[in-house]
């Protein structure tokens, strides 16, 4: 039952899922780090990415064009969101931010229902990525492999930007001590706008990349938003490094847990008990992991200032 191939498959799936989660968590954690802003609409930006992509795909049947439209569209929505609503919330307390962005989630979901209806939309992967490829004797879908590659590329790019460029230095400085950076003459609001837009862009990218794998429907942003929150709490709020390792950890635990916990339960407790509790335990696994991390380190794995 527990073969090498199954294990490899789940590890690859976990990697793919984790990198996708990182695309979402990166923006979330940076906006929090700089502006101390709880942005629950991040899941809606992911959803908008999916819908923009599906719309463009429906018009042109080109996957790559769909990706472009999704990324640009989500970034524009992000900029509008920052300017119109979020900017007036930065100086408010977390409760107001949670409340306002919760209201925005409801608004986004209904807007999507009004414009595109309540049905699910479809995006198909491009022709050249429909096949599968053999890795260590395992046939793995090419499309998922592409997500892994894109995720790694984006992570590398982010690492380069944040550690090797001037804007990245400002972002790191802003996340460490916002007031000081502001006092040194950096326009912190514009810096945050850039981070907000970049975060929205990545969320939109995640939305369209995941579209061929999961369904596009109103409310699709919420479950993944909660996962992203788990990621940044586990990794340490405000830390991009924490978001990366947290995302890989959570993604891996989610996939591997889903695949193996029911099997392990059957081994230890018999089939009946496993069928009763297995799926539930599997969904709960990542939350238990988060709880364990927080018992050991309340500030998260790589947490700093905000813990």
């Amino acid at each position, binding site marked *: 039952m527990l073969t090498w191939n199954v294990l490899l498959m789940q590890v690859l799936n976990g990697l793919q899922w984790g990198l996708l989660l990182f695309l979402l968590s990166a923006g979330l954690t940076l906006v*929090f780090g700089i502006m*101390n802003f*709880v942005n629950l609409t991040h899941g809606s930006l992911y959803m908008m990415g999916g819908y923009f992509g599906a719309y463009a795909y429906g018009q042109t049947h080109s996957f790559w064009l769909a990706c472009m439209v999704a990324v640009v569209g989500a970034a524009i929505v992000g900029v509008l969101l920052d300017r119109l*609503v979020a900017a*007036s*919330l930065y100086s408010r307390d*977390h*409760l*107001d931010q*949670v*409340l*306002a962005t*919760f*209201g*925005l*989630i*409801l*608004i986004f*979901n*209904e*807007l999507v*229902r*009004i414009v595109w209806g309540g049905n699910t939309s479809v995006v198909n992967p491009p022709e050249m990525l429909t096949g599968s490829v053999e890795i260590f004797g395992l046939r793995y879908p090419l499309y998922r492999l592409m997500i892994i590659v894109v995720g790694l590329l984006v992570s590398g790019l982010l690492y380069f930007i944040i550690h090797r460029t001037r804007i990245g230095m400002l972002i790191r400085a802003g996340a460490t001590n916002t007031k000081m950076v502001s006092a040194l003459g950096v326009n912190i609001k514009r810096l945050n706008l850039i981070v907000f837009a970049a975060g929205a862009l990545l969320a939109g990218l995640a939305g369209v990349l995941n579209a061929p794998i999961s369904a596009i429907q109103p409310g699709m942003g*919420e479950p993944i938003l*909660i996962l992203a*929150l*788990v990621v*940044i*709490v586990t990794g340490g*709020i405000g830390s991009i490094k924490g978001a990366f390792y947290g995302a890989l950890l959570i993604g891996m635990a989610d996939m591997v847990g889903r695949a193996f916990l029911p099997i392990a339960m059957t081994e230890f407790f018999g089939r009946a008990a496993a*069928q*009763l*509790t297995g*799926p*539930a*335990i599997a*969904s*709960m696994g990542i*939350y*238990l992991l*988060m*709880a364990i991390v*927080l*018992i050991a380190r*309340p*500030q*998260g794995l790589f947490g700093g200032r*905000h*813990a």
Partner: protein
Amino acid sequence: MHEIVNNSPRWPATNANASRLEHLSASVNWTAAILILVLALVPMAASAIGELYYVTLMTRALIFALAAVGLNLVLGYGGLVSFGHSVYLGIGVYTVGIMMDHGITNAWLQLAAALLIGTIVAGVIGALSLRVKGVGFIMITLAFAQLLYFFCVGLRDYGGDDGFSLNGYSDFGLFQLGDNNTLYYAVLAVLAFTLLWVSRLISARFGMVIQGCKSNERRMVALGFPVFRYQWAAYVLSALICVVAGFFIVNLTRYVSPAYMQWTVSGELIVMVVVGGIATIVGPVIGAIAIVLFEEFASHAAFGLPGNADAFIHEHWLGALGVVILIVALCLKQGLYGSLFKRSARRA
């Protein structure tokens, strides 16, 4: 802008008599008393106009009011933004549902079991979550709520994702919760008692300490208060009020489902508290009634608008709720009760 009076910690006056007087006047909240009296007339008014459905609707509103009052204890007075209080509704719902499923209809037993489980769960979640401060607390309470949500979804024997319906009613011996009016008055009585209890708790030493932690936790620690223990106790107490609300709501809808534990329910509870007026005694009640009535109104009422506008609003009322929430969050910091009554009272 002035601070809401209740926000700032009021220390007992040095004069013992003055302090006792202040406590007495603080514990009898006249607005709350009038509100409860008016609410007591609802079943009569409903039967007078022949719309018995309003009793059920208002029962729902009052049950959510009870839960909101509970949440307000940590959210408003404690300043701890818990985004996971739907769990405790769910604990009430599932305990009653599962016991009923096994033929235990005794309401006292059900309540005792629900409160016991609620204490244990809230104790554990509270102890873990309170280690994390600020925004982390919001997220970790949300995550724990999801954990238990998935646990209940996984209860295959008890309906799993779909839930299951109940055949019986909780039986208190003296009375049953089967009758609509009985249920309404039972909820109202519990709500009235809870309001009185919370208002006394808040003006007692315990309430002062948790409000002090909200204003300046570091100073409270420096003063030597065991801050964690106080906040933990407040968290568990607020959770238990929600457990009782869950006990009632399953008797109202007679349906057990993980839907009560969805994270959006936690969000709606926060909305109720803030819309009504955070850190006030009657604010959460007003907020809960306003939101439940708004939901009902926006999703069913005939506005007589031209074209398909009515149907459009009915279908997309959640968006309208979102707009209301956004406006409240951006503009109405003190909520309905806080903005309307507190300000005029101060001017007078």
